[in-house]
């Protein structure tokens, strides 16, 4: 079966690496994906008029029909907006985190484990809230890390806000949020959202990686995490 793939603006620009890594892992797991032709921006959180925001993603749903009504959307903002605009429920919309499960990863050839490493899984907001649009397995990052020997920290802040939504209007808030998160956790931050990546990376002195880095490292496709 072929899946529609919606990269969105971040993944074709500032988070290009997340796009490449995600495509590679999906392919390795046996998913066939095809980019939605001529997709447009989902509007992220920049539109105060809800109808206007929904309309942008509805356009994308229409365009997806050319490939498949089952859509994979990596960026949490795009993923959420697509799900919100799927009011009649005609489409199935997934985040790649829904596909990255431990059982499937275990079937691959694992070359390295995560022993003696400490991580803070960090989901942020949109992947987990509101409930209607949340990912299926709310512990997926922890499950992958612990299954391969890594240690977890920062359980209490995993769904606190990074303040990334205000990054380009009121960055003092973003800085406050990141300071709070960093002060209550330790180890390498593991994220899936490009905005969380940028916020944590800018305002903390800790290493920030995507969960895809970890998977590719275990598969021997990357030297370092």
């Amino acid at each position, binding site marked *: 079966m072929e899946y529609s793939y919606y990269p969105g603006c971040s993944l*074709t620009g500032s988070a290009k690496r997340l796009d490449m890594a995600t495509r590679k892992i999906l392919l390795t797991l046996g998913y066939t994906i095809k980019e939605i032709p001529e997709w447009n921006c989902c509007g992220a959180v920049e539109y105060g008029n*809800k109808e206007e925001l929904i309309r942008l993603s509805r356009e994308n749903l229409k365009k997806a029909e050319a490939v498949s009504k089952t859509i994979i959307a990596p960026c949490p903002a795009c993923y959420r907006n697509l799900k919100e605009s799927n009011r009649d429920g005609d489409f199935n919309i997934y985040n790649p985190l829904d596909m990255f499960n431990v059982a499937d990863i275990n079937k691959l050839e694992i070359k390295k484990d995560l022993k003696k490493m400490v991580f803070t899984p960090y989901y942020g907001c949109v992947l987990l809230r*509101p409930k209607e649009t949340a990912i299926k397995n709310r512990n997926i990052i922890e499950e992958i890390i612990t299954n391969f020997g890594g240690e977890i920290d920062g359980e209490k802040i995993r769904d606190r806000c990074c303040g990334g939504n205000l990054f380009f209007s*009121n960055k003092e808030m973003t800085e406050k949020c990141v300071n709070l998160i960093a002060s209550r956790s330790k180890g390498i931050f593991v994220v899936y959202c490009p905005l969380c990546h940028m916020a944590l990376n800018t305002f903390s002195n800790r290493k920030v990686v995507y969960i895809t880095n970890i998977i590719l490292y275990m598969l021997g496709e990357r030297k370092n995490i």
Partner: protein
Amino acid sequence: MEKIIAYTGYKKKDFSACLGCKICASVCTLNDFSMHANPQGLLLKILLGDNTITDDPLIKNCVSCYRCTDACPWQIRVPEVVRAIRETLELSSPFEKAFKGSISIWGRVYEPYIFMNAIGFLIKNGYLKHLMKWTEYISFHLPHKIKRI
């Protein structure tokens, strides 16, 4: 006020569903920083047509984390109400305006365009000092203008 309500996607009577329990305030991210945020108060002001909403700390600082929504018995989407207010009062930053400008030209975000259009704002507000940490986000690509299909 009508425009705000229309933008939220709610009807006016939906605002009266709020129980006044203030669970939202107890989980609001802003209150981790003692910013005295009360989403319930904001909803009430909208219901009552009170114009003092502009002074509410949520208008400037709500981070759209949906913690309030998640905890609310009615799952009321306060951040979407805040965004509707910001849009109605035209409070978006030059960066956000450039973001929408890019979408209206190309149908997508094209970072160099946004960067150039918001450069004054970025300099004035001290964003350029982060450039060293942003090198990994810079990737060269040409703008792609969406064709109608």
